[in-house]
């Protein structure tokens, strides 16, 4: 059994949060006066909507991060976790994200670097320890959702990772969408040829990917306060679709509680 296979375990180490907050990270963030969810909160929300994510644990310090890494199993990814940091990889001169940490020493060193940068920046930061996904095993896709003032909830699928801005290969649908529509959106991408299995690589599970698109649309419909969901990347493989990173943005003028 993996050490963290559901959201509750992740939140157990998240001592500051109350139980009510665990149940609804959106309400918790709004109560705190925040307009973004942390990656852990965002992934918890996605899990609740049925989206598979990588295993993760929130730790308070370097010791905790090492313990979490031992549980999850090396190699791991270590990321800064703070409501104040939404673009983690650009934060702290690159300290915000450390990939492929394969020993306790490596985790400790990366954790201390985050702590140093956080202290310097005056940011209240914690540590997100995460299972390392083999991105070579699949295709990175972006799945997004936003609440447009004129169109309401809309979803998008696109080629993810570093190619997102380069090719701007995206397709859009108005939410809610069903799986068939979401599949159509995915299949209308130029990148669909990559997903279909390029030069002998395994074809991606398009139904699983479509389900992520459906779930993102449903989140916007269910949570009035959510104005944007950014799941980038989603790793699409033959076995499924796993959210590797996620960002949820809220509008604090909107009350939580759905329709």
């Amino acid at each position, binding site marked *: 059994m993996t050490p963290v296979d559901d959201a509750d375990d992740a939140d157990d180490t998240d001592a500051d949060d109350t139980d009510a907050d665990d149940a609804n990270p959106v309400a918790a963030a709004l109560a705190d006066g925040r307009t973004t969810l942390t990656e852990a909160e965002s992934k918890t929300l996605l899990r609740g909507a049925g989206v598979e994510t990588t295993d993760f644990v929130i730790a308070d310090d370097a010791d905790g991060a090492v313990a979490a890494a031992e549980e999850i199993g090396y190699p791991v990814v270590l990321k800064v976790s703070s409501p104040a940091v939404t673009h983690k990889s650009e934060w702290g001169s690159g300290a915000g994200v450390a990939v492929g940490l394969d020993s306790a020493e490596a985790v400790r060193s990366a954790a201390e670097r985050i702590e140093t940068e956080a202290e310097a920046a005056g940011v209240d930061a914690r540590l997100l320890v995460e299972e390392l996904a083999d991105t070579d095993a699949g295709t990175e896709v*972006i799945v*997004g*959702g*936003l*609440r*447009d*003032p*004129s*169109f*309401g*909830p*809309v979803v*998008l699928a*696109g080629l993810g990772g570093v190619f*997102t*801005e380069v090719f*701007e290969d*995206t*397709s*859009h*649908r*108005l*939410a*809610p*969408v*069903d799986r068939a*529509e979401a599949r159509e959106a995915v299949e209308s991408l130029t990148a669909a040829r990559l997903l279909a299995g390029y030069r002998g690589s395994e074809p991606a599970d398009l139904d699983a990917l479509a389900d992520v698109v459906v779930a993102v649309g449903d989140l916007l*419909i269910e949570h*009035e306060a959510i*104005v*944007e*969901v*950014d799941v*980038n990347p989603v790793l699409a493989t033959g076995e499924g679709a796993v959210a590797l990173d996620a*960002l949820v*943005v809220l509008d604090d003028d909107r009350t939580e509680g759905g*329709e």
Partner: protein
Amino acid sequence: MNLQRLFDPDAVAVVGASANEDKIGYEAMASAVRFDGPVYPVNPSGEGELFGEPFVDSVTDVDGVDLALLCVPAPVVPDVIAECGEAGVGAAVIYSGGFAEAGEEGEELQRTVVDAAAEHDIALLGPNTSGYVVPGSDLLFSFASGVETVPAGDVAVLAQSGGVAHDLAFRSTREGYGLSAMVGLGNRANVGFEEAIEYFDGHDDTDAIVLHVEGTDDARGLLETCRDAETPVAAYKVGQSDVGEFAESHTGALTGDHDLYLAGFEQYGVPTVDSTAALLDAGVALAHEPEPSGANVGVVTAQAGPGIIIADRLQRAGATLPELGAETRERIDEILPGITFSGNPVDTGRPMPEFGEVVEAVAADDAIDAVLVYELFEEALGFPVEALDGLHEATGTPVLFATEGPPDAMADQVDALREAGVPVYVQPERAAEATATLARYADLREAGAVPESAAEQGVSR
């Protein structure tokens, strides 16, 4: 809101009517008087008569006016609307600019007008519009001159811009189509796309609605209205707008308004086109032809070159060209032994007396959902009018026609085909695009692209 009094009035007042030929109040009156009902020129400083109608001081001086055409400057409009309310006028066209399109003060002025209209339940077309024309009923309520030349047809043009509305109206005139209505929506104070689409969906003379869209505050409402309309709708969304308030993150940066319109129209069963010409062409195809059962197009051409262009364009635009059935090929071989090419396209090599029979054979093929015919005009042969007349009714398969030739020499034959219910286009590309739009419309409807769940959930923005 009931738009009956706006688009089908019994009596009309032209407020700000003027004998000065340079003024909108003159042009509007000049066109309006063709209306078969009372048209009252309203102007306190007007003397005597204008186009045989005596001036009155105020709309409150006349009874039974449904529609007031306001040829007055923007600042006066709120007072005139209040007066209209007092007089029981049900609708107004506001030609003047200087409202929401002109900055904050204008926005405030527009709000005042909308509030006044709401108080008296007045439907407002505009402001900032050139008005509307319904040629079949001689409702020429535009200040642009020459609108009386627009022939009656069966396509309703609903344009956000009055300029585009007129451009399309005059283009349709030149190309011999005609319109059931031409409406410039302008600032859409309280009559917008949704209200106008709903009205013309129920308009007896309208068989297709085409939209020119720049942008609207309630795009989802527009899409839902299009989906709910029984009349076929096609749209031309103009302008690739910027990314708006979500530009900072990936999702926002990747989502322009334009993308959402194109995706949304498709999702809600509305084919989109990329030019004003294509918009009219699509309207004519949608209005005249039965809804095809799919996107499989059969092409019959008397000349290879245009046929190749058509085959290429059709496929690029999302239609498919299936092989014809064995039975059809045998039938064509019997009609024309040793034919140039009898796959799809069928190329007869040159116009010939049997051309119409070939078209009939292709239209009857089970694999074919629509037929596009290309033939250069040959005076000695004419067009196969008899064969094509009623063919789409007999087969349930749309038949469209494209040609070119000396305009005067072929005019009668073009008219004959059109009277037989066959849309006639010039330019192989335009014909192909219109056919592909018709085919795509069928595909979008067929795919059940309509998310029922969206309608039920009443999604909030």
